[in-house]
């Protein structure tokens, strides 16, 4: 991590960049927050460890509007989101200096907390850390495998290549050990009743906090349809019967073809709803019907929903 801080300091000092967008040490061992560093002195609080899961590319929408270049630390999967934002003209590439940081998968604190409470110290989560993570708690010490506490999205890692970067730092690891569409296929194999029950059960937990929307790099509309007070979509009513389904289907639909499957929605959901299952279903369908497409891989590529062929299949047909 020191190497990265040194490099960022150098970039700030020689005037290449005016500020750095990275992660700031939290007050607990596992809660760094995204932050903007304006000076080399502020960088003393910079941190990059296993808990820096936040995708910083969305924050670049605002950051690239500022005077001067902003250096941003992007993990391999974050670069897909950044590319997609370039595609949509939401970020100014000229004002960004991208440091592709290495990643060996990011940790899910919820998984760690399942059997470790009262955490006072966690060590070994840095990029060059150990296979084992040591957790000190007031109820006793624990040791877990780094790979056992990975975020769900890391099990379907898109690979260790950065799609866009001005320079890279650190070694990445491909942590994929599951089939990307495995969960979707499992659901598809169920009966309609079972699927309905499954989603009802999951979505009934939704508290309509909008965290999934607000964190999503593809949800970058200046004004969301669900915030429009002049249209009755804006119902904050948390009723089980319909509103959540409406919100989540429409949200997933709106990012279909643009969603890079970065998994932020599922990471931030306070109720642990597997929201990526909606997005991944769309991705799977797009791949199947319109040819394989990975949003954010190529900033020039045409998104499947703003494109068509004369031979597209008819709605309702399932090939």
């Amino acid at each position, binding site marked *: 991590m020191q190497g990265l801080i040194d490099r960022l300091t150098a970039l700030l000092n020689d005037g290449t960049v005016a500020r750095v967008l990275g992660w700031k040490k939290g007050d607990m061992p596992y809660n760094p927050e995204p932050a903007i560093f304006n000076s080399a002195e502020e960088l003393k609080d910079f941190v990059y460890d296993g808990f820096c899961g936040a995708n910083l590319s969305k924050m670049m929408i605002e950051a690239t509007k500022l005077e001067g270049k902003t250096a941003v630390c992007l993990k391999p999967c974050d670069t897909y989101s950044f590319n997609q934002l370039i595609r949509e003209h939401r970020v100014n590439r000229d004002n960004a200096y991208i440091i592709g940081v290495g990643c060996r998968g990011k940790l899910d604190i919820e998984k760690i907390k399942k059997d470790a409470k009262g955490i006072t110290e966690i060590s070994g989560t840095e990029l060059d850390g150990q296979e084992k993570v040591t957790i000190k708690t007031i109820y006793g010490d624990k040791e877990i495998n780094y790979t056992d506490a990975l975020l769900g999205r890391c099990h379907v890692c898109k690979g260790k290549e950065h799609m866009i970067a001005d320079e890279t730092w650190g070694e990445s690891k491909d942590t994929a050990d599951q089939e990307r569409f495995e969960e979707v296929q499992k659901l598809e194999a169920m009966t309609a009743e079972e699927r*309905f029950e499954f*989603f009802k059960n999951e979505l009934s937990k939704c508290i309509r906090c909008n965290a999934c929307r607000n964190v999503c790099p593809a949800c970058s509309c200046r004004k969301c349809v669900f915030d429009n007070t002049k249209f009755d979509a804006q119902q904050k009513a948390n009723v089980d*019967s319909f509103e959540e*389904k409406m919100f989540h*289907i429409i949200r997933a639909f709106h990012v279909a073809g643009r969603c890079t499957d970065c998994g932020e929605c599922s990471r931030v959901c306070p109720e642990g709803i597997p929201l990526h299952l909606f997005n991944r279903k769309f991705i799977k*369908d797009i791949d199947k019907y319109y040819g394989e497409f990975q949003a954010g891989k190529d900033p020039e590529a045409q998104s499947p929903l703003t494109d*068509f062929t004369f031979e*597209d299949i008819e709605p309702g047909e399932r090939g």
Partner: protein
Amino acid sequence: MSVNENGEFRPLIVAFCCNWCSYAGADLAGSSRLSYPADVKIIRVPCSGRVNPMFILRAFERGADGVIICGCHPGDCHYSTGNYYARRRMTLLFSMLDYIGVENGRTRVEWCSAAEGAKFSKTMNEFCEKIASLGKNVRLGDLRCKD
């Protein structure tokens, strides 16, 4: 939905019809004295490409039992390509509705030109029968809108 005097279930069907084809097709069906059930409520849209997925979900929420979208035949769009986009969108949306466990068949897309009054009437009759056999929409409705 409604229940008629014989206690028989009558579905409520919302049809989004493109101004340039099926909306005129419905007119032709009427002037040709071809009948289709009164359960179908037509909403005129400028193009099938205008149909936002939210329209469909809203219709279901507000008590529709089935939603059908009628547009120009591929290649015949008044705006050249609107129906091609609609086709992709609806393919994905219908697949998603199926995925979350809504009965397959409550939604349908039909390409129907202004000259196809007979097809319009036939489609609507078929669709009404289909929805009547599926019964009341309980999975996508809002309890607050129930009778």
